[in-house]
């Protein structure tokens, strides 16, 4: 079976004002559909950089990146945007909801991105279905300032799910939430993998990591499996 994500020998250097610093130095990673992978690591270890390469926000300096068997290592920006829209869903530590839009409109914003056109009624229906999937359809008309942190993050997850992506990338989605609320969000993400969606979760939380199929640690620019702590 062709893996959904296949990284081999991926390298990345960060270029600041001083000398370039190698942040990833030969990352190998394979993720299949319906599989969830947790990535642990210390702050500054390159977890977010790795996620930004997988999410096509940036390009690797070296190595190869296959998506569903297709080499997308050097994908042009226009095609990368189309692929992000069609195949990826993103959840960030901060929710990045637009305050002037309702929850439903925030979810529907992922449908108004110039990548194909959906009529207003269909956009609304899809947004409500996504909100329902994360259990907050009743809050569709609420604007972000009226929602709690957990509710806001669930709106953000609904926004990531509304285009029915095949790969979810979550960058510390529970970092700004208390444990109970964080668990709710992880439940929602986990439920998405049950429907065949791949998930890469970057987290500092061992409990959340242990609920994933595999746990990897990013250290010295390389991903290593963390076998002993895996529960799921």
């Amino acid at each position, binding site marked *: 079976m062709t893996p959904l994500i296949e990284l081999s020998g991926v390298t990345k250097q960060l270029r600041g004002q001083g000398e370039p610093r190698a942040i990833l130095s030969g990352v190998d990673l394979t993720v299949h559909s319906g599989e969830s992978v947790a990535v642990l690591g210390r702050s500054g270890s390159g977890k977010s950089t790795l996620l*930004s390469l997988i999410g096509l926000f940036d390009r690797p300096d070296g190595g190869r990146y296959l998506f569903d068997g297709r080499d997308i290592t050097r994908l042009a*920006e226009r095609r990368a945007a*189309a692929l*992000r829209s069609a195949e990826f869903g993103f959840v*960030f*530590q901060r929710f990045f909801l637009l305050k002037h*839009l309702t929850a439903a409109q925030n979810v529907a*914003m992922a449908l108004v991105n*110039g990548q194909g*056109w959906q009529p207003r009624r269909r956009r609304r229906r899809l947004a409500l279905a996504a909100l329902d999937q994360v259990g907050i359809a009743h809050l569709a008309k609420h604007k972000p300032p009226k929602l709690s942190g957990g509710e806001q993050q669930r709106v953000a997850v609904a926004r990531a799910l509304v285009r029915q992506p095949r790969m979810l990338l979550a960058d510390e989605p529970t970092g700004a939430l208390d444990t109970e609320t964080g668990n709710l969000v992880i439940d929602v993400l986990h439920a998405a993998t049950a429907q065949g969606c791949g998930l890469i979760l970057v987290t500092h939380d061992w409990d959340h990591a242990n609920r994933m199929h595999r746990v990897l640690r990013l250290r010295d620019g390389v991903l290593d499996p963390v076998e002993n702590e895996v529960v799921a």
Partner: protein
Amino acid sequence: MIRLSGRLANVGRWPLRQAARLSSALIIGVQGIRARKLRTLLSMLSLFLGVLAVVVVEAGAQTARQAALSDIELHVGKDGTVIMSVPPDPKIVPAAMDAVAGRSDAVAFFPAHAVIGEPNVSPVNQGGAPFDQGNGGGYFARPPGVEIICDNRGVCQKVEFGPVNQPPPGQAIELQVTALTGDIRQFRPFRSVSGQWLDFSGAPSLSPRLVLNREAAKGFSRYQVPAQMRVDGATADPTPRIVGVVDDGNEVPMAYVRADELLNWLPLTRAGNFGELQMMMTPAAAGDIAQTLRARAAAVGVPAEELRANTVNSKKEAESHLALLNWIFLGMAGLVLLIGVAGVMNVGLATVGERVEEFALRRAVGTPRSLLAGIVLAETMLTGLFTAAAAIGASSLALKVVSRLLASHTSYLTNLSFPWQAGVAGIVAGVAAGLLGGMIPAIRAARIPIATVMRA
């Protein structure tokens, strides 16, 4: 692989993709405007004066153009009209009248001089002067003992006769009369003021029907004069009937009469006593009539070169002069508009700075850079459009007020409507200024790094 290709193929059709992006840009742009009403209002305020200047200049230019050109048509005739002048020679005038008789595409007319009112008195507007200029200060006013004599070429000069007996002032109005063989309005579009125009069908009446111009009508409404008309050179004084009033653009009192009704009292041989007989005709009729007249002139011994013809082209010439002025004023308005553009740019840059995370997030969910630029441009363009609507509304309202206040002083301001060209100019100026002002903010928005959301 198949699924990926299929999805990409859905958005791969260029026109559909562009339509989707345009719709997305407009939707997000409207959302942005609604979310930042105060900023939009600030942009509109900075742009308003510039767009208003363009609208006002264009509206003023169009109104002035309309007024100037309509006056030119009233005085000189519509462009393309052929005017032929026939010397006031008794041998050729009857032939000229014959040449246009019964034709609808040509009309001949000759001037006459008339006084309506009490006999043997000095008219209230001696010399046919306008009524508000006072007797003695008018165009043709002449002091006692002075006469104005015109020769065959229409050149007039003052001749002093020494002391003469000036008749006592009385209730009479002096005016110029134009005798017409047909409806001249197809060439000089007089504006009807009241009553009706001359009816050229049917037999001529012995009581000549007159259509006055506004200045003459002013005199008749101001003074009570008996209905007795003395026409210089006439065999007797007919009783005129006033049937209507028109605006002919003339500031001296004038009256229009059917030529055949005047000729009941004025011998045709004297028809050219007060100036040349003129003919107005369509270009199609000109060749035919000119050929006939030249043959008749040669037959009676009048040199053919004395029949002069020229085609009216005044409107075109006036338009080119007005267009130059219009461009100069539009250039000045454009400078004011540039200040507005700078304001839009300023507010736009501040807004983009505030929305860095939003734009980065939009890129993360697949929005291409070009669409991000399009969103900013859509917002500034819509702002420009709203500003244009406000400026057009304000100008239209101002024009209505001015028209209502000044209509009694200036005839062409009556029923003045807002020129559509000014509306188009306003919309073009608003949209162009919005796009120009949004250009740099749009480029900045498109360059926001997507990783902003990761580092936040």
